[in-house]
Protein backbone atom coordinates (compact mmCIF):
# COMPACT_ATOMS: atom_id res chain seq x y z
CA UNK A 1 0.00 0.00 0.00
CA UNK A 2 1.23 3.43 -0.87
CA UNK A 3 0.74 6.35 1.44
CA UNK A 4 -0.95 9.43 0.04
CA UNK A 5 -1.00 12.80 1.71
CA UNK A 6 -4.49 14.04 0.95
CA UNK A 7 -5.13 17.08 3.11
CA UNK A 8 -4.24 19.23 6.03
CA UNK A 9 -6.26 18.31 9.08
CA UNK A 10 -7.69 21.82 9.01
CA UNK A 11 -9.04 21.24 5.47
CA UNK A 12 -11.78 18.93 6.77
CA UNK A 13 -13.90 20.56 9.46
CA UNK A 14 -15.19 18.47 12.38
CA UNK A 15 -18.36 16.64 11.28
CA UNK A 16 -17.48 17.24 7.65
CA UNK A 17 -15.89 15.24 4.87
CA UNK A 18 -13.95 15.69 1.66
CA UNK A 19 -13.58 13.51 -1.43
CA UNK A 20 -10.16 12.80 -2.91
CA UNK A 21 -9.24 11.00 -6.12
CA UNK A 22 -6.57 8.47 -5.16
CA UNK A 23 -5.31 5.92 -7.70
CA UNK A 24 -8.50 6.14 -9.74
CA UNK A 25 -10.78 5.74 -6.75
CA UNK A 26 -12.92 8.37 -5.13
CA UNK A 27 -12.10 8.19 -1.45
CA UNK A 28 -14.03 10.15 1.12
CA UNK A 29 -12.34 11.21 4.34
CA UNK A 30 -14.52 12.02 7.34
CA UNK A 31 -13.52 14.06 10.37
CA UNK A 32 -15.40 12.83 13.42
CA UNK A 33 -14.70 13.91 16.98
CA UNK A 34 -11.04 14.59 16.20
CA UNK A 35 -10.50 11.33 14.29
CA UNK A 36 -10.25 10.77 10.55
CA UNK A 37 -11.76 7.85 8.62
CA UNK A 38 -11.34 7.05 4.93
CA UNK A 39 -13.79 5.00 2.87
CA UNK A 40 -14.50 4.31 -0.75
CA UNK A 41 -17.06 6.92 -1.83
CA UNK A 42 -19.55 4.34 -3.11
CA UNK A 43 -22.16 2.37 -1.25
CA UNK A 44 -21.62 -1.35 -2.03
CA UNK A 45 -25.34 -1.72 -2.70
CA UNK A 46 -26.06 0.61 -5.65
CA UNK A 47 -23.08 2.94 -5.68
CA UNK A 48 -24.52 6.00 -3.92
CA UNK A 49 -21.95 8.67 -2.97
CA UNK A 50 -21.18 8.19 0.72
CA UNK A 51 -19.93 11.77 0.96
CA UNK A 52 -23.63 12.66 1.07
CA UNK A 53 -24.35 10.14 3.84
CA UNK A 54 -25.66 11.21 7.21
CA UNK A 55 -23.20 10.73 10.06
CA UNK A 56 -25.39 9.29 12.77
CA UNK A 57 -25.12 7.63 16.14
CA UNK A 58 -25.29 3.89 16.68
CA UNK A 59 -28.83 3.30 17.88
CA UNK A 60 -29.44 0.08 19.79
CA UNK A 61 -32.31 -1.36 21.71
CA UNK A 62 -31.70 -4.11 24.28
CA UNK A 63 -35.45 -4.66 24.40
CA UNK A 64 -38.51 -3.08 22.82
CA UNK A 65 -39.14 0.35 24.29
CA UNK A 66 -35.56 0.94 25.47
CA UNK A 67 -33.25 2.90 23.17
CA UNK A 68 -29.57 3.76 23.49
CA UNK A 69 -27.36 6.03 21.42
CA UNK A 70 -23.62 5.57 21.30
CA UNK A 71 -20.62 6.39 19.10
CA UNK A 72 -22.25 9.61 17.99
CA UNK A 73 -21.31 10.57 14.44
CA UNK A 74 -19.38 7.35 13.69
CA UNK A 75 -22.10 5.50 11.79
CA UNK A 76 -22.71 6.34 8.14
CA UNK A 77 -26.25 6.23 6.78
CA UNK A 78 -26.20 5.90 2.98
CA UNK A 79 -27.89 8.86 1.25
CA UNK A 80 -30.13 6.59 -0.84
CA UNK A 81 -31.40 3.48 0.93
CA UNK A 82 -30.25 4.24 4.44
CA UNK A 83 -27.88 1.28 4.82
CA UNK A 84 -25.68 1.87 7.85
CA UNK A 85 -21.94 1.33 7.92
CA UNK A 86 -19.38 1.54 10.70
CA UNK A 87 -16.97 4.29 9.74
CA UNK A 88 -14.04 2.56 11.49
CA UNK A 89 -14.25 -0.71 9.61
CA UNK A 90 -16.64 -0.06 6.73
CA UNK A 91 -18.75 -2.97 7.93
CA UNK A 92 -22.47 -2.79 7.44
CA UNK A 93 -24.49 -2.67 10.59
CA UNK A 94 -27.19 -5.11 9.44
CA UNK A 95 -25.08 -7.77 7.70
CA UNK A 96 -21.44 -7.25 8.68
CA UNK A 97 -20.20 -10.58 7.28
CA UNK A 98 -21.49 -10.03 3.76
CA UNK A 99 -21.61 -6.32 3.08
CA UNK A 100 -18.98 -3.72 3.75
CA UNK A 101 -17.58 -0.55 2.31
CA UNK A 102 -13.88 -0.64 1.58
CA UNK A 103 -12.12 1.33 4.27
CA UNK A 104 -8.55 2.53 4.24
CA UNK A 105 -6.00 3.09 7.00
CA UNK A 106 -5.68 6.74 7.90
CA UNK A 107 -2.89 8.46 9.76
CA UNK A 108 -2.35 12.00 10.90
CA UNK A 109 1.28 13.08 10.90
CA UNK A 110 2.95 16.37 11.46
CA UNK A 111 4.50 18.24 8.60
CA UNK A 112 7.82 17.96 10.37
CA UNK A 113 7.73 14.15 10.30
CA UNK A 114 6.65 14.17 6.67
CA UNK A 115 9.57 16.32 5.71
CA UNK A 116 11.89 13.78 7.23
CA UNK A 117 10.26 10.75 5.68
CA UNK A 118 10.12 9.37 2.14
CA UNK A 119 6.54 10.50 1.48
CA UNK A 120 6.91 14.18 0.99
CA UNK A 121 4.51 15.12 -1.79
CA UNK A 122 6.34 17.31 -4.19
CA UNK A 123 3.23 19.14 -5.28
CA UNK A 124 1.94 19.82 -1.79
CA UNK A 125 2.93 22.95 0.04
CA UNK A 126 4.25 21.50 3.26
CA UNK A 127 4.16 23.65 6.32
CA UNK A 128 5.90 22.07 9.23
CA UNK A 129 3.48 23.55 11.73
CA UNK A 130 0.48 21.71 10.22
CA UNK A 131 -0.78 18.17 10.60
CA UNK A 132 -1.57 16.14 7.50
CA UNK A 133 -4.09 13.42 6.77
CA UNK A 134 -2.52 10.41 5.10
CA UNK A 135 -4.51 7.64 3.45
CA UNK A 136 -3.05 4.27 2.57
CA UNK A 137 -4.37 2.82 -0.68
Amino acid at each position, binding site marked *: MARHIVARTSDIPPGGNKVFGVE*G*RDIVVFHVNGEFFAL*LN*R*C*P*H*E*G*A*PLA*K*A*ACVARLTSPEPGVYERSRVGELLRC*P*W*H*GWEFDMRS*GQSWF*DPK*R*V*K*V*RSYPVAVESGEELQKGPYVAETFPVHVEDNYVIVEV
Partner: protein
Amino acid sequence: MSDVIDRPILAEEVAAQSRLRIIDCDVHPSIHAHSDIEQFMPKRWQEHLRTYGSHLRTPYIGTTPYPRSSPLIARRDAWPPTGGPPGSDLDFMRKQHLDPLDIEYGILQVLDLFIFSQQNLEFGAAIQRAINDWQLAFWSDREPRLKASILAGQDDTEFAIAEIERCAKIGRYVQINVCPRANEPLGRRRYWPIYARAQELGLPLGIHVGGYGGHAPTGGGWPSYYVEEHQSNAHTMAAQLTSLVLEGVPERFPNLKIVFIEGGFGWIPSATWRMDRHFEAFRSEVPHLKRRPSEYVKEHFWFTTQPIDEPDEAKHLRSLIEWVGADRLLFSSDYPHWDFDDPRYAFKTPLTETERRKIFNGNARALYKL
Protein backbone atom coordinates in the same frame (compact mmCIF):
# COMPACT_ATOMS: atom_id res chain seq x y z
CA MET B 1 -26.67 -9.02 -2.04
CA SER B 2 -23.50 -7.33 -3.08
CA ASP B 3 -19.84 -7.80 -2.53
CA VAL B 4 -17.63 -4.91 -1.61
CA ILE B 5 -17.26 -2.50 -4.49
CA ASP B 6 -13.54 -1.89 -4.23
CA ARG B 7 -12.52 -0.66 -7.62
CA PRO B 8 -12.76 2.36 -9.85
CA ILE B 9 -15.79 2.52 -12.20
CA LEU B 10 -14.49 1.20 -15.50
CA ALA B 11 -14.86 3.15 -18.72
CA GLU B 12 -16.69 0.25 -20.36
CA GLU B 13 -19.32 0.27 -17.61
CA VAL B 14 -20.13 3.85 -18.44
CA ALA B 15 -20.27 2.92 -22.13
CA ALA B 16 -22.53 -0.08 -21.44
CA GLN B 17 -25.01 2.07 -19.60
CA SER B 18 -25.24 4.52 -22.49
CA ARG B 19 -25.77 1.80 -25.09
CA LEU B 20 -29.31 1.29 -23.85
CA ARG B 21 -31.45 4.37 -23.57
CA ILE B 22 -33.71 4.11 -20.58
CA ILE B 23 -37.38 4.88 -20.17
CA ASP B 24 -37.88 5.64 -16.50
CA CYS B 25 -41.56 5.12 -15.62
CA ASP B 26 -41.50 6.78 -12.20
CA VAL B 27 -39.92 10.23 -11.88
CA HIS B 28 -41.23 12.59 -9.21
CA PRO B 29 -41.26 16.30 -9.94
CA SER B 30 -42.01 18.61 -7.03
CA ILE B 31 -43.60 22.00 -6.73
CA HIS B 32 -40.90 24.53 -5.95
CA ALA B 33 -43.37 26.91 -4.29
CA HIS B 34 -47.15 27.01 -4.01
CA SER B 35 -47.10 30.21 -6.03
CA ASP B 36 -46.02 28.10 -9.03
CA ILE B 37 -49.38 26.36 -9.21
CA GLU B 38 -51.53 29.29 -8.12
CA GLN B 39 -51.52 30.63 -11.66
CA PHE B 40 -53.45 27.50 -12.67
CA MET B 41 -56.08 27.85 -9.93
CA PRO B 42 -59.10 30.12 -9.56
CA LYS B 43 -58.73 32.74 -6.81
CA ARG B 44 -61.26 30.88 -4.70
CA TRP B 45 -59.03 27.81 -4.44
CA GLN B 46 -55.81 29.78 -4.09
CA GLU B 47 -57.33 31.30 -0.97
CA HIS B 48 -58.50 27.89 0.20
CA LEU B 49 -55.02 26.44 -0.21
CA ARG B 50 -53.51 29.31 1.78
CA THR B 51 -56.19 29.31 4.46
CA TYR B 52 -57.02 25.65 4.98
CA GLY B 53 -54.48 23.56 3.08
CA SER B 54 -55.15 19.82 3.04
CA HIS B 55 -57.98 18.10 4.83
CA LEU B 56 -57.01 14.43 4.91
CA ARG B 57 -58.73 11.47 6.49
CA THR B 58 -55.92 10.15 8.64
CA PRO B 59 -56.38 8.88 12.16
CA TYR B 60 -53.39 10.28 14.04
CA ILE B 61 -51.88 13.73 14.28
CA GLY B 62 -48.63 13.85 12.38
CA THR B 63 -49.14 10.75 10.25
CA THR B 64 -48.92 12.52 6.94
CA PRO B 65 -46.22 15.18 7.13
CA TYR B 66 -42.73 14.40 6.04
CA PRO B 67 -39.98 13.41 6.78
CA ARG B 68 -40.47 9.71 6.23
CA SER B 69 -37.18 7.90 6.61
CA SER B 70 -35.27 10.79 5.06
CA PRO B 71 -36.23 14.48 4.82
CA LEU B 72 -39.04 14.76 2.23
CA ILE B 73 -38.55 11.00 1.61
CA ALA B 74 -35.72 12.09 -0.67
CA ARG B 75 -32.21 10.98 -1.51
CA ARG B 76 -29.89 13.08 0.61
CA ASP B 77 -27.89 13.99 -2.49
CA ALA B 78 -30.96 15.17 -4.43
CA TRP B 79 -31.42 18.57 -2.81
CA PRO B 80 -30.89 21.14 -5.55
CA PRO B 81 -27.98 23.52 -4.93
CA THR B 82 -30.32 26.33 -5.94
CA GLY B 83 -32.69 25.60 -3.04
CA GLY B 84 -36.18 24.16 -3.06
CA PRO B 85 -37.20 20.57 -2.43
CA PRO B 86 -35.75 17.55 -4.26
CA GLY B 87 -37.28 17.15 -7.70
CA SER B 88 -38.17 20.84 -8.01
CA ASP B 89 -35.26 22.03 -10.15
CA LEU B 90 -35.35 20.87 -13.78
CA ASP B 91 -31.72 21.75 -14.53
CA PHE B 92 -30.53 19.80 -11.51
CA MET B 93 -32.76 16.85 -12.47
CA ARG B 94 -31.18 16.87 -15.92
CA LYS B 95 -27.69 17.03 -14.49
CA GLN B 96 -28.15 14.48 -11.73
CA HIS B 97 -30.55 12.03 -13.34
CA LEU B 98 -31.65 12.39 -16.98
CA ASP B 99 -28.25 13.04 -18.56
CA PRO B 100 -25.88 10.72 -16.65
CA LEU B 101 -28.25 7.75 -16.72
CA ASP B 102 -29.17 8.34 -20.36
CA ILE B 103 -32.90 8.60 -19.74
CA GLU B 104 -34.69 8.76 -23.07
CA TYR B 105 -38.06 9.45 -21.43
CA GLY B 106 -39.19 9.92 -17.86
CA ILE B 107 -42.85 9.48 -16.95
CA LEU B 108 -43.86 12.06 -14.37
CA GLN B 109 -45.67 10.98 -11.21
CA VAL B 110 -46.74 13.90 -9.03
CA LEU B 111 -47.45 13.20 -5.37
CA ASP B 112 -47.42 16.77 -4.05
CA LEU B 113 -50.37 18.16 -2.09
CA PHE B 114 -51.87 14.69 -1.48
CA ILE B 115 -54.01 15.32 -4.52
CA PHE B 116 -55.91 12.04 -4.42
CA SER B 117 -56.63 12.12 -0.70
CA GLN B 118 -58.38 15.44 -0.25
CA GLN B 119 -61.71 15.00 1.46
CA ASN B 120 -62.96 18.26 0.02
CA LEU B 121 -63.55 16.87 -3.47
CA GLU B 122 -63.85 20.26 -5.15
CA PHE B 123 -60.57 21.42 -3.70
CA GLY B 124 -59.07 18.07 -4.74
CA ALA B 125 -60.35 18.64 -8.25
CA ALA B 126 -58.93 22.17 -8.36
CA ILE B 127 -55.42 21.06 -7.39
CA GLN B 128 -55.51 18.06 -9.72
CA ARG B 129 -56.38 20.38 -12.55
CA ALA B 130 -53.70 22.87 -11.53
CA ILE B 131 -51.06 20.17 -11.29
CA ASN B 132 -52.03 18.71 -14.65
CA ASP B 133 -51.43 22.13 -16.23
CA TRP B 134 -48.28 22.70 -14.18
CA GLN B 135 -46.80 19.38 -15.39
CA LEU B 136 -46.86 20.68 -18.96
CA ALA B 137 -45.88 24.29 -18.28
CA PHE B 138 -43.04 23.58 -15.84
CA TRP B 139 -41.80 20.20 -17.07
CA SER B 140 -42.91 18.70 -20.40
CA ASP B 141 -42.87 22.02 -22.29
CA ARG B 142 -39.37 22.74 -21.06
CA GLU B 143 -37.99 19.21 -21.32
CA PRO B 144 -39.36 16.93 -24.05
CA ARG B 145 -37.96 13.85 -22.32
CA LEU B 146 -40.48 14.26 -19.50
CA LYS B 147 -44.00 12.97 -20.14
CA ALA B 148 -47.00 13.98 -18.05
CA SER B 149 -49.81 11.86 -16.60
CA ILE B 150 -53.42 13.01 -16.25
CA LEU B 151 -54.21 13.00 -12.53
CA ALA B 152 -57.86 12.12 -12.07
CA GLY B 153 -59.14 11.46 -8.55
CA GLN B 154 -61.59 8.62 -9.00
CA ASP B 155 -63.80 9.32 -5.98
CA ASP B 156 -65.40 12.19 -7.91
CA THR B 157 -65.95 10.23 -11.10
CA GLU B 158 -67.77 13.04 -12.86
CA PHE B 159 -64.93 15.46 -12.34
CA ALA B 160 -62.39 12.80 -13.24
CA ILE B 161 -64.05 12.23 -16.60
CA ALA B 162 -64.24 15.99 -17.27
CA GLU B 163 -60.56 16.38 -16.42
CA ILE B 164 -59.61 13.42 -18.60
CA GLU B 165 -61.54 14.97 -21.52
CA ARG B 166 -59.92 18.35 -20.99
CA CYS B 167 -56.40 16.95 -20.87
CA ALA B 168 -56.97 14.45 -23.67
CA LYS B 169 -57.89 17.36 -25.96
CA ILE B 170 -54.50 18.91 -25.21
CA GLY B 171 -53.09 15.57 -26.30
CA ARG B 172 -49.74 15.64 -24.53
CA TYR B 173 -50.35 13.21 -21.66
CA VAL B 174 -49.33 9.55 -21.84
CA GLN B 175 -51.34 8.04 -19.00
CA ILE B 176 -54.35 8.49 -16.70
CA ASN B 177 -53.52 8.16 -13.01
CA VAL B 178 -55.87 7.06 -10.26
CA CYS B 179 -55.03 6.22 -6.65
CA PRO B 180 -54.79 2.77 -5.01
CA ARG B 181 -56.09 4.11 -1.69
CA ALA B 182 -59.48 5.42 -2.71
CA ASN B 183 -62.77 5.01 -0.87
CA GLU B 184 -63.51 1.63 -2.42
CA PRO B 185 -61.45 -1.09 -4.11
CA LEU B 186 -60.54 -0.18 -7.67
CA GLY B 187 -62.63 -2.91 -9.26
CA ARG B 188 -65.93 -1.40 -8.10
CA ARG B 189 -68.36 -0.31 -10.79
CA ARG B 190 -68.53 3.28 -9.60
CA TYR B 191 -65.08 3.72 -11.15
CA TRP B 192 -65.83 1.99 -14.45
CA PRO B 193 -66.67 5.17 -16.41
CA ILE B 194 -63.02 6.17 -15.97
CA TYR B 195 -61.84 2.82 -17.30
CA ALA B 196 -64.22 3.05 -20.23
CA ARG B 197 -62.84 6.46 -21.17
CA ALA B 198 -59.21 5.34 -20.73
CA GLN B 199 -59.89 2.42 -23.07
CA GLU B 200 -61.51 4.64 -25.69
CA LEU B 201 -58.65 7.12 -25.56
CA GLY B 202 -56.04 4.36 -25.68
CA LEU B 203 -54.30 5.74 -22.57
CA PRO B 204 -52.92 3.32 -19.97
CA LEU B 205 -54.33 3.55 -16.45
CA GLY B 206 -51.50 4.30 -13.99
CA ILE B 207 -51.78 3.39 -10.32
CA HIS B 208 -48.97 4.74 -8.14
CA VAL B 209 -48.65 3.57 -4.54
CA GLY B 210 -49.51 5.91 -1.70
CA GLY B 211 -52.35 8.13 -0.76
CA TYR B 212 -54.31 8.55 2.43
CA GLY B 213 -57.78 7.14 2.12
CA GLY B 214 -59.93 6.50 5.12
CA HIS B 215 -58.87 2.88 5.36
CA ALA B 216 -55.95 1.46 7.27
CA PRO B 217 -53.06 0.73 4.92
CA THR B 218 -52.89 -2.88 6.05
CA GLY B 219 -55.63 -5.46 6.34
CA GLY B 220 -54.64 -5.73 9.99
CA GLY B 221 -55.08 -2.06 10.82
CA TRP B 222 -52.85 0.96 11.30
CA PRO B 223 -49.14 0.20 11.66
CA SER B 224 -46.86 1.77 14.26
CA TYR B 225 -43.81 2.30 12.10
CA TYR B 226 -43.03 3.71 8.69
CA VAL B 227 -41.19 0.48 7.85
CA GLU B 228 -44.47 -1.37 8.38
CA GLU B 229 -46.41 1.05 6.26
CA HIS B 230 -43.79 0.93 3.52
CA GLN B 231 -44.14 -2.84 3.44
CA SER B 232 -47.90 -2.41 3.07
CA ASN B 233 -47.52 -0.80 -0.37
CA ALA B 234 -47.17 -4.29 -1.78
CA HIS B 235 -50.25 -5.59 0.07
CA THR B 236 -52.31 -2.66 -1.19
CA MET B 237 -51.25 -3.32 -4.76
CA ALA B 238 -52.04 -7.02 -4.39
CA ALA B 239 -55.51 -6.14 -3.07
CA GLN B 240 -56.14 -3.81 -6.01
CA LEU B 241 -54.91 -6.33 -8.57
CA THR B 242 -57.30 -8.85 -7.04
CA SER B 243 -60.18 -6.38 -7.06
CA LEU B 244 -59.62 -5.28 -10.66
CA VAL B 245 -59.32 -8.84 -11.98
CA LEU B 246 -62.05 -10.54 -9.96
CA GLU B 247 -64.62 -7.76 -10.35
CA GLY B 248 -64.13 -8.16 -14.07
CA VAL B 249 -62.47 -4.92 -15.21
CA PRO B 250 -60.18 -6.52 -17.81
CA GLU B 251 -63.01 -8.79 -18.92
CA ARG B 252 -65.32 -5.78 -19.38
CA PHE B 253 -62.59 -3.52 -20.91
CA PRO B 254 -60.50 -5.88 -23.03
CA ASN B 255 -58.27 -3.13 -24.44
CA LEU B 256 -57.57 -1.39 -21.13
CA LYS B 257 -53.92 -1.40 -20.09
CA ILE B 258 -53.11 -1.01 -16.40
CA VAL B 259 -49.72 -0.06 -14.91
CA PHE B 260 -48.90 -0.65 -11.24
CA ILE B 261 -46.28 1.89 -10.23
CA GLU B 262 -43.83 1.62 -7.32
CA GLY B 263 -45.34 -1.55 -5.97
CA GLY B 264 -42.38 -3.72 -7.00
CA PHE B 265 -43.09 -7.14 -8.47
CA GLY B 266 -42.02 -9.80 -5.97
CA TRP B 267 -45.57 -10.37 -4.74
CA ILE B 268 -47.16 -10.94 -8.15
CA PRO B 269 -46.47 -14.66 -8.70
CA SER B 270 -47.99 -15.82 -5.42
CA ALA B 271 -50.93 -13.41 -5.77
CA THR B 272 -51.80 -14.80 -9.20
CA TRP B 273 -51.16 -18.44 -8.24
CA ARG B 274 -53.55 -18.02 -5.35
CA MET B 275 -56.17 -16.29 -7.47
CA ASP B 276 -56.01 -19.08 -10.05
CA ARG B 277 -56.36 -21.78 -7.47
CA HIS B 278 -59.29 -20.10 -5.74
CA PHE B 279 -60.90 -19.36 -9.07
CA GLU B 280 -61.19 -23.09 -9.72
CA ALA B 281 -63.18 -23.47 -6.50
CA PHE B 282 -65.20 -20.26 -6.65
CA ARG B 283 -65.80 -19.79 -10.35
CA SER B 284 -69.57 -20.05 -10.03
CA GLU B 285 -69.47 -16.98 -7.79
CA VAL B 286 -67.76 -14.95 -10.53
CA PRO B 287 -69.20 -16.30 -13.77
CA HIS B 288 -68.37 -12.99 -15.45
CA LEU B 289 -64.76 -14.17 -15.59
CA LYS B 290 -64.19 -16.13 -18.78
CA ARG B 291 -60.57 -17.03 -18.14
CA ARG B 292 -58.22 -17.76 -15.29
CA PRO B 293 -57.15 -14.67 -13.34
CA SER B 294 -53.50 -15.13 -14.33
CA GLU B 295 -54.42 -14.81 -17.99
CA TYR B 296 -55.90 -11.37 -17.37
CA VAL B 297 -52.80 -10.40 -15.38
CA LYS B 298 -50.51 -11.51 -18.22
CA GLU B 299 -52.40 -9.52 -20.82
CA HIS B 300 -53.62 -6.36 -19.14
CA PHE B 301 -51.15 -5.42 -16.42
CA TRP B 302 -47.65 -3.99 -16.34
CA PHE B 303 -45.51 -3.47 -13.25
CA THR B 304 -42.74 -0.96 -12.66
CA THR B 305 -39.66 -2.54 -11.13
CA GLN B 306 -38.77 -0.32 -8.16
CA PRO B 307 -38.39 -1.21 -5.34
CA ILE B 308 -36.84 -4.45 -6.54
CA ASP B 309 -36.91 -7.23 -3.99
CA GLU B 310 -33.46 -8.53 -3.16
CA PRO B 311 -33.50 -12.21 -2.24
CA ASP B 312 -30.32 -13.53 -0.63
CA GLU B 313 -29.68 -15.67 -3.68
CA ALA B 314 -29.62 -13.99 -7.08
CA LYS B 315 -31.18 -17.01 -8.75
CA HIS B 316 -34.39 -16.39 -6.85
CA LEU B 317 -34.68 -12.91 -8.36
CA ARG B 318 -33.99 -14.57 -11.70
CA SER B 319 -36.97 -16.90 -11.12
CA LEU B 320 -39.19 -13.97 -10.12
CA ILE B 321 -38.46 -12.14 -13.35
CA GLU B 322 -39.29 -15.27 -15.34
CA TRP B 323 -42.49 -15.91 -13.39
CA VAL B 324 -43.77 -12.36 -13.80
CA GLY B 325 -42.46 -12.17 -17.35
CA ALA B 326 -39.94 -9.72 -18.80
CA ASP B 327 -42.79 -8.50 -21.03
CA ARG B 328 -44.68 -7.15 -18.01
CA LEU B 329 -41.87 -5.17 -16.35
CA LEU B 330 -41.08 -1.49 -16.82
CA PHE B 331 -37.93 0.01 -15.34
CA SER B 332 -38.50 2.79 -12.84
CA SER B 333 -36.07 4.67 -10.61
CA ASP B 334 -38.37 6.60 -8.24
CA TYR B 335 -35.99 9.56 -8.53
CA PRO B 336 -35.46 11.57 -6.31
CA HIS B 337 -36.86 9.48 -3.45
CA TRP B 338 -34.78 7.68 -0.89
CA ASP B 339 -35.44 4.19 -2.23
CA PHE B 340 -34.27 5.19 -5.73
CA ASP B 341 -33.06 2.35 -7.94
CA ASP B 342 -29.98 2.95 -10.08
CA PRO B 343 -30.50 1.17 -13.43
CA ARG B 344 -26.87 0.02 -13.47
CA TYR B 345 -27.01 -1.80 -10.14
CA ALA B 346 -30.66 -2.39 -9.27
CA PHE B 347 -30.92 -5.89 -10.76
CA LYS B 348 -28.79 -8.15 -8.60
CA THR B 349 -28.96 -10.87 -11.23
CA PRO B 350 -27.78 -10.86 -14.84
CA LEU B 351 -30.37 -10.10 -17.52
CA THR B 352 -30.16 -11.28 -21.10
CA GLU B 353 -29.81 -8.60 -23.75
CA THR B 354 -33.40 -9.23 -24.87
CA GLU B 355 -34.70 -8.86 -21.32
CA ARG B 356 -32.71 -5.67 -20.82
CA ARG B 357 -34.14 -4.14 -23.97
CA LYS B 358 -37.67 -5.00 -22.93
CA ILE B 359 -37.48 -3.93 -19.31
CA PHE B 360 -35.42 -0.76 -19.72
CA ASN B 361 -37.01 0.53 -22.90
CA GLY B 362 -39.09 -1.60 -25.28
CA ASN B 363 -42.07 -2.43 -23.06
CA ALA B 364 -42.59 1.21 -22.03
CA ARG B 365 -42.04 2.47 -25.56
CA ALA B 366 -44.85 0.25 -26.85
CA LEU B 367 -47.18 0.80 -23.89
CA TYR B 368 -46.91 4.59 -23.88
CA LYS B 369 -46.52 4.82 -27.68
CA LEU B 370 -43.29 6.79 -27.33
